[in-house]
């Protein structure tokens, strides 16, 4: 009787497939988030990088460059500097998330559960990306606190959050999607090498070298067009010719490509499952 009443109070999620998928999605996000967040190697890796950045923080805080005249300028430079590096680390750390299921031989077991492939894939993506953003955000926040103390200005907190969302979150969403999608079809070690090479080619290769590059296009994955467009700076910190429209274009291009990568991965995995 008690069990019957309990089923009456709690709507059955198995009756509605959409509710079942949402439930599976939520479960997958939580599970993947905690699995990634509990990897102490993730924290050790980013802590090692943090040491490298702390070596340069003094120069960043006390620079005599003419274009750094306020806490806002310092903050935007910090956000831009962080974003040249940490999304690369995030992408490399996410490269083994998909293949982990195969390595531990639970992928076929998961296929037998009611959770749909889309829910599991999206849950893996969102959960793992959010967990990987956690140490990056903490390092970013440390830099923001030091900047606020240096300039005695706490009014930059909204700008700090906005800059982080516009740059690092977008970049990590972009690289995370490709890290998970590409490793459905290639070995993680090959992806890691190609990704490192891509990060240099797409963000640091001078377009005047003569070799075609994504650097300077809306698909520049370190989000420099986004920060230049959304946070114009009269001190010429960034490219002054970038408009808000171009910033939105870059944002849309990066997130759109991320969505396409995940969709392609879903289609491929569905085909694979159907032909197993």
């Amino acid at each position, binding site marked *: 009787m008690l069990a019957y009443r309990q089923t009456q109070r709690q709507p059955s999620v198995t009756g509605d497939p959409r509710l079942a998928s949402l439930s599976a999605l939520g479960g997958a996000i939580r599970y993947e988030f905690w699995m990634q967040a509990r*990897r102490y*190697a*993730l924290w*050790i*890796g980013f802590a*090692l*990088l943090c040491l*490298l950045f702390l070596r*340069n923080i003094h120069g960043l805080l006390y620079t005599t460059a003419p274009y750094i005249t306020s806490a806002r300028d310092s903050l935007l430079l910090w956000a831009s500097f962080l974003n*040249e*590096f940490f999304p*690369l*680390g995030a992408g*490399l*750390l996410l*490269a*083994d998330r998909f293949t982990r299921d195969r390595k531990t031989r639970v992928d076929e077991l998961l296929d037998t559960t009611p959770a749909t492939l889309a829910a599991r894939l999206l849950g893996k993506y969102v959960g793992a990306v959010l967990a990987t953003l956690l140490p990056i955000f903490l390092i970013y926040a440390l830099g923001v606190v030091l900047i606020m103390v240096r300039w005695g200005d706490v009014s930059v907190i909204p700008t700090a959050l906005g800059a982080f969302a516009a740059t690092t979150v977008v970049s990590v969403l972009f690289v995370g999607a490709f890290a998970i999608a590409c490793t459905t079809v290639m*070995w*993680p*070690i*090959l992806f*890691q*090498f*190609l*990704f*490192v*090479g891509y*990060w*240099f080619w797409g963000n*640091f290769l001078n377009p005047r*070298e*003569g*070799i*075609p590059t994504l650097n300077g296009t809306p698909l520049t994955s370190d989000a420099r067009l986004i920060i230049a467009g959304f946070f114009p700076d009269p001190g010429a910190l960034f490219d002054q010719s970038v408009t808000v429209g171009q910033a939105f274009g870059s944002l849309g291009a990066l997130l759109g490509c991320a969505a396409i990568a995940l969709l392609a991965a879903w289609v491929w995995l569905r085909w694979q499952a159907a032909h197993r």
Partner: protein
Amino acid sequence: MPFQLLWQRLRYELRILGIINIGLPIIVAAIYLGFSYLAGSFALRNGGTDAYMRFQAGRGLLALLENGLPLAGGLIAAVVISQNPALELHLSLPARYQRVGALRLALIVGWAALFTGAVAALVAVTGFWLPQLKQLSVVESALMWLAPLLWFIAAGAALALLLRSRAVSGAVLGLIWIAMFIFKDQLIKDPILQNVYLFLTEEVGTPSYWLANRLIVLAIALALFVLAFWLLGRNEALLHDEA
């Protein structure tokens, strides 16, 4: 008979290494060759001379020797040294896993050095060796690519054993690789750090401290190999929390 046993052992170890780990240096070389070809083609298309075309293509090939193949070697070492599905069984056998792991690492070093050396020889024979490198002796020319190659392989193995994660060790190697380009000016201007800058020949050339730099990088690589060898002998470093 001993040769047959050795050959069988080698075939077994190559199977453990896997086709992707053996093939990764070849894939990397193909990618860099493609970029070098593009660089040379654009140089000619923009009205450059044949010598300028060779210079631009040669820069790409130097990058392959000094930063491309070393990174590939480091990633391979990080993966191979940490993968062994029958590790607990192996640790229960009389044959010491430390010796097996060291031999596997030696196989990676041997293959990477052989391939990189062959590429370097091919670059020299085809006339794409940069003019400023022609002053180096044969030993110095080998040291140019051997030092960063051994550094990355040793670092990959040591990181994989220390961090107990091939993904994180690969990430750290990749970030060190990018840091060499982002922080180049700071590293080169510092009188201490310039001696450990990994891509010195490609980014700066052959300054007065070049030989000291290569020897110090080699010494660090050897120290990291010793660390990796020591970690291979500690089963808690291999078995995670199960020891």
